[in-house]
């Protein structure tokens, strides 16, 4: 019973915080509520991880709420990304208000949307019923839509509309998939209310109807894949990421995509076990992954907008994770490790880019120059995090990419190997070129050097230290967590 309480806490606290936000009117109070909620959630998430690692999976509400190692791992990462983004938002929005880019009267509403988004994502992770999981994903789309157009401009409204329509329709397709999974279990024994519970389907995965599961998986990959940013369903993603304010972009890239990707992770073992482990579903993921990597690489070469550049980089990383997941074995482990690394590096990258955009007043790469002189902290943050993201050696992303590469070589799939390496190389070169321009290029504009705050230094140093340490050695507890989560996906 006490174990179940923590699941309710994960769900209820964010919405409660959001409700408090809408009741208050002062900016100070709202910032305080947001921080308190986020830090409480961070602590709750770590406690839940601790409970799960000792006692195994926990359940509540007659099995409708459920937390195992896979979801617990995601929950902790989500809260970390959220805590960092909230911390950054606290220094980002006052500057926006000073520039008259943001009306502070709207603060309660956005505070509510921000915290409710956290609640909706937690709902995705803790729900055992795959229908409720779908409800959670759709809710994240609806809640985050208005966060994109915090700065009301024609462009941001366009981005919001595209996001709203594409993701709603995409996620609606995933609902068809969910219903098909329910139909695939139609001949299973068991009470009617169990038929959509993930744990029930997982236990009986061998006797699910294979034809229905295959149909369902196609709908699910296209549906949730739209939200996860798989090419060719990605066209909303660069628009939304480039128009949203930096903390929101960081959240989108750092964890909204992974939330949808998590749903695909949940279905993968069901489909694989139902079809007799032939690797049918995994090949589909490898295909979408490689396609996303190549498309992202192609669009990164001639990119002029700094935030669009990062958005395409997110598509590339989701692609890399999909490839890892599709390979199985070491690949699954590496994909989960890559998820951690990406959600450490990418938010920092968006924070720094957001600050650069704020200081220079433009998104164009060719007009942001000589950043190292003007804002040393954020320029360093941008440089190091982007370097880590494209796979530079001492950082952890190099390790996870390397493991995925090893998994491809073990499978002796040389076409995939060539495409993977080609995509990563193109991204590496084009990103490096832009980075040099931004950091050291001669600037004509006359911009005063900016003061660095302690908080900024923490925001830059913390993720980079994590990436550096994990790149040098992997602690045993993390290895255990990742291995247990990977085992769930592989169906052991």
């Amino acid at each position, binding site marked *: 019973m006490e174990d179940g309480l923590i699941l309710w806490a994960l769900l209820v606290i964010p919405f409660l915080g959001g409700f408090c936000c809408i009741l208050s009117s002062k900016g100070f109070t709202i910032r305080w509520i947001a921080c308190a909620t986020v830090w409480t959630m961070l602590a709750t998430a770590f406690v839940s991880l601790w409970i799960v690692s000792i006692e195994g999976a926990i359940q509540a509400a007659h099995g*409708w709420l459920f937390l195992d190692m896979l979801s617990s791992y995601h929950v902790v990462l989500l809260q970390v990304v959220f805590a960092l983004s909230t911390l950054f938002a606290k220094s980002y929005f006052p500057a926006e208000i000073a520039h008259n880019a943001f009306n502070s009267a709207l603060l309660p509403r956005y505070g509510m949307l921000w915290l409710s988004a956290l609640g909706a994502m937690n709902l995705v992770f803790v729900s055992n*019923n795959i*229908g*409720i999981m*779908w*409800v959670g994903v*759709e*809710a994240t789309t*609806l809640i985050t*839509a*208005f966060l994109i*157009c915090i700065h*009301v*401009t*024609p*462009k941001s*409204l*366009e*981005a*919001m*509309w*595209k996001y*709203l*329509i594409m993701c*709603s*329709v995409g996620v*609606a397709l995933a*609902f*068809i998939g969910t*219903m*098909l999974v*329910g*139909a695939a279990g*139609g*001949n299973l024994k068991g009470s*009617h*209310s169990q*038929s*959509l519970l993930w744990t029930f389907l997982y236990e009986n995965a061998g006797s699910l*109807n294979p*034809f*229905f599961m295959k149909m369902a998986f196609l709908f699910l990959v296209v549906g949730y894949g739209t939200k996860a940013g798989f090419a060719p369903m990605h066209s909303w993603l*660069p*628009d939304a990421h*480039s*128009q949203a304010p930096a903390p929101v972009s960081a959240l989108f890239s750092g964890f909204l995509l992974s939330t949808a990707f998590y749903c695909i992770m949940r279905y993968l073992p069901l489909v694989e076990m139902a079809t007799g482990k032939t690797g049918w579903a995994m090949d589909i993921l490898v295909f979408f992954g490689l396609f996303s990597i190549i498309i992202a690489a192609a*669009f990164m070469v*001639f*990119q002029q907008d700094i935030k*669009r550049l990062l958005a395409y980089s997110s598509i590339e990383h989701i692609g890399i994770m999909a490839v890892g997941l599709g390979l199985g074995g070491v690949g699954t482990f590496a994909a989960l490790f890559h998820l951690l690394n990406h959600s450490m590096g990418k938010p920092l990258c968006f924070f720094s880019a957001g600050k650069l955009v704020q200081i220079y007043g433009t998104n164009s790469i060719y007009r942001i120059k000589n950043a190292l002189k003007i804002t040393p902290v954020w320029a360093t943050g941008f440089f190091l995090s982007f370097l880590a993201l494209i796979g530079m050696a001492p950082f952890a992303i190099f390790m996870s990419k390397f493991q995925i590469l090893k998994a491809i070589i073990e499978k002796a799939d040389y076409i995939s190997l060539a495409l993977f390496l080609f995509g990563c190389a193109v991204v590496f070169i084009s990103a490096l070129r832009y980075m040099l321009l931004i950091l050291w290029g001669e600037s004509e504009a006359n911009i005063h050097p900016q003061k660095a705050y302690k908080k900024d230094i923490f925001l830059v140093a913390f993720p980079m230290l994590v990436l550096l340490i994990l790149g040098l050695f992997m602690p045993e507890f993390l290895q255990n967590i990742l291995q247990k989560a990977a085992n769930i996906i592989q169906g052991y």
Partner: protein
Amino acid sequence: MEQLINMLMVVILLTNLLLLGSSRMGTCIPTLGFQGILLGLALPVLLFLPQGITTHILVLVLITIPLRGILFPFILFRVIRKTNIQREIEPFISYPVSIFLGILALVLAFWMNSRLTGMSVPSLHPLLLPVAFYTILVGLILIVSRKLAINQVLGYIVMENGMYVLGIAFAGEVHLLLELGVLMDVFVAVFVMSIAIYRISREFDHIDVNQLQNLKD
């Protein structure tokens, strides 16, 4: 009884064709509401009548009808009034082509159904699945083939109607909590979309999706 259900299915199919073929929002929106009432009242009652009406069905009917039959059309009319847009629909493709696509979709829906039948799915009624697929396909056609943002919302609602039927077809009586969750999502989606349209019209003085092309690489 059987004939009544068959007739109901055919009427639902016809409302979809009407949605594809009519040129005025003044026709489309009431048609949508009519479809919502058919789905919300007639379908569950007729299908589940042999088992007796449970509280589950009663709650569902009492929520679905006000929502799909009355509130959604009301919201759409309100958006039109508030944004002062013209009530012509402006499709990318002409109405005869729309109708033709609709008939193709009907063939496709029956073909999909023929692939699925005999796959050990306990179906409540043989026409349920094709009607569901057809309604979803018509919703998709409406979303991609119309220029005004409000028509995309209309298409989205039609698609959601289809998914409601699909849920009944595949899962029979889904748990009430799940059903309510889905309904709440749909309601919030329509609500959010109408606010979005209102904001777009205020910023652009039009809601023509075709002209939203500022963002590209």
